[in-house]
Structures are given as C-alpha cells and as structure tokens.
C-alpha cells in the first residue's frame, strides 16, 4: 500500500465521520432541502469527468467523457439551483412581521375611511368600496373591469390615504409602503398571481361586515404583502 493510498483512506474515513456528525440534528422541515443540498455536493464528480476528459484519446474515451461531463454538469448545476429555489421560499418569511404589522393598520383604516355603510357588498366588494375612500380612480373604471387587475390596485389605493388619516405608528407605515408598491408592480406585470390578489381584495372588505362581531382579530394576511410576493 502506498502512502498516498493510505492517506486517501484516512481522509475517506474521517470525512464519513464528519458527515455523520454534521447532519445528526436537523428539523424535519429541512430534510428535503438538505437531501437536495447533499445531492448537489456529489456533483463534484464533475471534477472527475474533467480529469478523464483530459486523459481521453480515443472515440470510446470521448463518448464516455461526454456522458460523464453531461451527467455531472446536470447534477451539479441543477442540484444547486433547485436547492436555492426551495430555500428561497423559506427566506420570504423574515420580512413578513413588518408586513403583518402593516396590514392591520391598512385594513383597520379602510373601514374607518368608509363613510358609506359597510356591508351590502356584491360580487366584487372592493371595487365598489375602495374608490370612494381613496378618491383616486373613478368608480366607473373599476366597475367596468371587475378583473383582477382592476380590483387590486384600487384596494391597495385605499391604504396610503387611510394611513394619512389614521396616522398609526411609524413602523406600520414604513412596512405598508413597500408592500403597496410591490403590489402595483405585480399587477402591472399581469402575473397569474393577480387572481390571488382578487381574493385578498375580496376578503379584506368583508371585515366591515364582520367587524362588529369579531373586532379583535383583524384580517391577518396583509393584502399588500401577499400580492407583493406574487411577482416572484
């Protein structure tokens, strides 16, 4: 046995032990991303594929080098990208506390800004309610286009003016503003997520009706933040 082989075997065994140790305590939430992450690490076989390609000098060698490098590159590139995508979905959470703070202020404000009696909502309540309070878009424009694109900007349009009238704590305002801007971006991009924007918009104005019976638990999901994330 050569010294090189002996040291390689030592490295192998020690790396095994590190592998056992490093992964022993993981929340189940992360099992799938972890598996995907480990999966991309063994894409290091691309290094081996490059080495055999350097040594290849006959047709069989070329074919095998092509296969090895294609397989390995797919493993390593795809593995890291898909892991990043998975983990990126978890990362959306930290900004949510400020966004959630913003939502009560925005949505509490909307009933107060409404002089009109709250309930009596038809199929697209937000389209009917939001414009009078916001004093921005003519109501007819919204009524004419009850589509997702028509409704949600108007629903979001409520909050800036409503905030100005209520003047909640600064943190809430700071959180709401980017959320609204993002929502407008999402709408102009006309993404599929706009459908959800509608449902949010439908949901929040229902609060005036529900507010007398359930005053404490305001609408938790922030209409602004939810639509804002759709553009991803």
């Amino acid at each position, binding site marked *: 046995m050569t010294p090189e082989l002996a040291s*390689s075997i030592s*490295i*192998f*065994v020690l*790396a*095994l032990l*590190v*592998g056992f140790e*490093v*992964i*022993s305590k*993981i929340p189940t939430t*992360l*099992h*799938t*991303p972890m*598996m995907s992450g*480990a*999966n991309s*690490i*063994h*894409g*290091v076989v691309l*290094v*081996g*594929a*490059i*080495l*055999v*390609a*350097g040594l290849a*000098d*006959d047709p069989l*060698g070329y074919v095998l*080098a092509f*296969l090895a*490098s*294609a397989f*390995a*590159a*797919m493993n*390593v590139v*795809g593995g*890291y*990208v*898909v892991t*990043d*995508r*998975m983990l990126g*979905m978890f990362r959306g959470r930290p900004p*949510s506390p400020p966004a959630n703070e913003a939502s009560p202020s925005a949505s509490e404000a909307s009933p107060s800004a409404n002089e009109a009696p709250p309930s009596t909502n038809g199929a697209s309540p937000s389209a009917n309610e939001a414009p009078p309070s916001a004093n921005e878009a003519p109501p007819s424009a919204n009524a004419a286009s009850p589509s997702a694109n028509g409704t949600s900007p108007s629903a979001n349009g409520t909050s800036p003016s409503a905030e100005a009238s209520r003047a909640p704590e600064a943190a809430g305002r700071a959180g709401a503003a980017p959320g609204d801007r993002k929502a407008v971006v999402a709408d102009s991009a006309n993404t599929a997520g706009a459908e959800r924007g509608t*449902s949010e918009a*439908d*949901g929040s104005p229902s*609060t005036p*009706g529900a507010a007398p019976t359930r005053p404490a*638990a*305001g*609408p938790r999901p922030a209409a602004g933040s*939810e639509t804002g994330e759709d553009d991803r």
Partner: protein
Amino acid sequence: MSATLTITWLVYLGAAVCFVLGLHLMRSPRTARRGNVVSASGMAAAVLVTALLLLDEDGGGVGWHGGVWAGLTLAGGIVVGGGYGLYAARRVRMTAMPQLVSLFNAVGGGAAATVALADASRELAAGSWDGLPASFSVPVALDVLIGAVTFSGSLVAAGKLQGWVPGAPITFRGSRALALVSAVVAVAAGVVVAVVGSGSSDGARTATTVALVVAVAAALVFGVLMVLPIGGADMPVVISLLNAFTGLAVAMAGFVVDNEVMIVAGALVGASGSILTKLMADAMNRSVGSILLGGFGTGDAPSAPGGPGAGPGATVRTVDADDVAIQLAYAHRVVLVPGYGLAAAQAQHELAELANLLSSHGVAVSYAIHPVAGRMPGHMNVLLAEANVPYEQMKELEEANAELDQCDVALVVGANDVTNPAARRPGTAISGMPILDVDHARSVVVVKRSMGHGYAGIDNELYSDPRTGMLFADAKDGLAQLVAAVKEYVSAA
C-alpha cells in the same frame, strides 16, 4: 510539490471546508440558503482549479491528450448537461421537485460510474498491459456497481413519482429471483474485475473487460428490480438511500482518479445521506431494511384488523361543502392538516386561499404538519411556503398536537395514516408511529377522495368517529368548493 499541485491542493481543501460548512449552515432555516451558496462557491472553485491540472502536465497534472475532440466533448457535455439541469431546476413545479432531485441523483451516479469506466477502459486499451493494481481495480469495481445501481434505481424512482412508472409495488413471477440473480452476477463480476484484473496475461485483460461490461449490465438490471417492487409512499426513503449510494460511488471515483476533493465530498454525502435516510425512515416508523426487503415480499405482513367499529361496514358521516363552510366560519380556532393527497393534487394554493379567507374572517388558523406529510419529509413545508403561507403558521408535530387539543375544527386534507388513532395502540401496522392527535379536536372534517386506505393499508378509526364528517372529493376540488362556500357565507353575513 509543484506550484500547480500546491494551488490545486489548497483550493480543494477550501472546497471541502465549504461543503462541510454548507451542510452545517443548512441545519437551520435561517442560514440554510447561505449554506447552499457557500457549498456552491466551493464547488465552483474546485471545478475551475481542476482546469489547471489539465493545462500543466509537467507540474504533475493530468495534461490534455485528446486534442480538439476531447475539448469538444467536454465543453459539449458541460453545456448540454448544465443547460438542461439549469432549465429543469428553474422550471420545475415545486410539487414535481422530488422526482427532479431523484433525476439529478441518477445522473450523478451515472457520472460516477462513467468516470470509472472511462479510466478503466483507457487502461484496458493501453498498449502495454501488466495488470491493474488492486488500489485501482477495487474502487473501479465498487464505483461501477454502486453507480450503475444508483443510476437505474433513481430513474425508476423518479418515474414512479412522476407517474410514468405505476407507483404501486410491481412484482412479476420470478422478479425476486431475478433480482437476486442479477445482484449475485453483478457482485461476482465485480470480484472478477478486482481479482483477475491484477493478472498480467492477455487472457486476464480480456476477462477483466468482459467482467466490467457484465458488472455494469447486471447492476443496471438490479437497480431497476430493486426499486420496482417498492411502493410510491416509500420513494423518499429510497431516493435518500440512493443519494447516499451516489456519494459513496463518487468517493470511489475519487479513488479511481486519485482526487481528494471527490473522496471527501463523496464520503460526506454518503454519511449524511445515510443519516438522513434513517431519520426519514424513523419518522415513518419503518426500518430501511424492511422498506427494501418489503419490495421482495417479506417485509409487509398483513396489517392487524382495526379497532372496534372500524371495520369495512363502519358507518361514516358524510357532509357537504356548505355545512363545512359554516362550521369553519363559526369556529374560533381551525387547524389544517395537509397530507400526501394535498401534495398529489397540488392543492396547496387552494388551501392557503381558504386559510386566508378564514383568517380574514377572524378565525385563528394554523397548519399541523406531520414530519412525513407530503411526498418527502419537509416537502409539505416547501409546498406551503410556495403558496405564501407564513412560516409561523406551520406547526410541527408537538406544537400542532397542543393546538389540536384546543381547536374547534380540524380540517384534514388528504392525510390518512398520520392521523390514525390506531397508532397509539399496540398491534397495528402503524403502532408507535408518531401521529397528529386530530381526534382531540372538537370536530373533524376530512377531505378525501374515498374511504381508501393509506399506505399502511388499514382502516382509519378517525373516519368512523361520530365527530368526524367526511367530505368526499379530490383535495383540489374539495378545497375549491369550500373556498366558494365560505366566500358565499362570508359575503352573505
């Protein structure tokens, strides 16, 4: 040591550190993404510095022997493979992600086996022949065997999850015997490569070549036959196991081409993959052995009969969407219990919509997530995160059970065995498995396509509980009905 070798060695060392740190950072949701980036940068550095070895043969590198053709094959391979990997990884729907991971795992194993084949075929075709040293032939044999099994096995696993191969266990007359034969042949051929390969005669050279080909073929057959008889619900464990196998194959490929970073990374994945496999199997109350052997018809004993009143004739109460909508809207606390059926129907957006609707109506909503809900451990969290469910609303087992004790309505969507109270009693197929205490809720609604059995193949006593209402529908349709009904109720109120 030449400058080239020193630089390469240093970068490889740094890459190995990055892999370990990356895995370490991935243990917490907060740092996981950074961990992946750290690991990817180590990988990029290791791949780039390997080019140095190609350019500097005099300094101890491998050099470049094939000229322009070899360059074209390498560049073409990287562009084709990397391009497809990038495309698939960016375009895949999150519900189809497990099979993509399995596919990436398959090609990783295939690449490891191909590297060994390429190196061995060059040795076997060389002008002078005086036998292969054991330090070369043994890792070649192991690499080819493990890599080929992983390749075909992972492809079948991906096909099962994708629906190209039926998810139910597949057996045919003699399949078990054929699997055993192919395993024996593969191992025997591997031994021939390792033993006869060291002979210096021309006969030994031919025998080694033939044995190598036989080993690949038999290992490919065995990989297929190993995974075919395993049911779709066990696929996550199988994929994780094959992932660990690939790690070992890559480490063996590292021995073949004498490359430390491959040995380190391969061993790291081999070990961590085994632990992960065990954790997953534990969460399902199965042993890895019984999953694999189960495929051969020895593991799954017929399950014990259900408890009192849970027989096939047990009466269940069916409800319709309008009843459920009113029940949900009047509740103070609702716990949603998503399961495999939700993942299969890709209904996470409908569930999130329902939850948002309810919480905007003042209902406290949370999600109870069993460790093995979905198609892989942790998969449900990813799916719900995709539907923009706030992280804080997802409760893991213990926390979820505390909430279930106090909730008014537990809405079970496509989950079966993980809610079966029979697991608390000894003597059933799922005894001892940690479950969600859905039966502790004041009332229960189950959205499910039929009274069909879950993976464990036993009746769920929860369904015949008088407090349980069954809404028979596909998860997606059922939730869409509920959303419509709740909306109508809310707007009418």
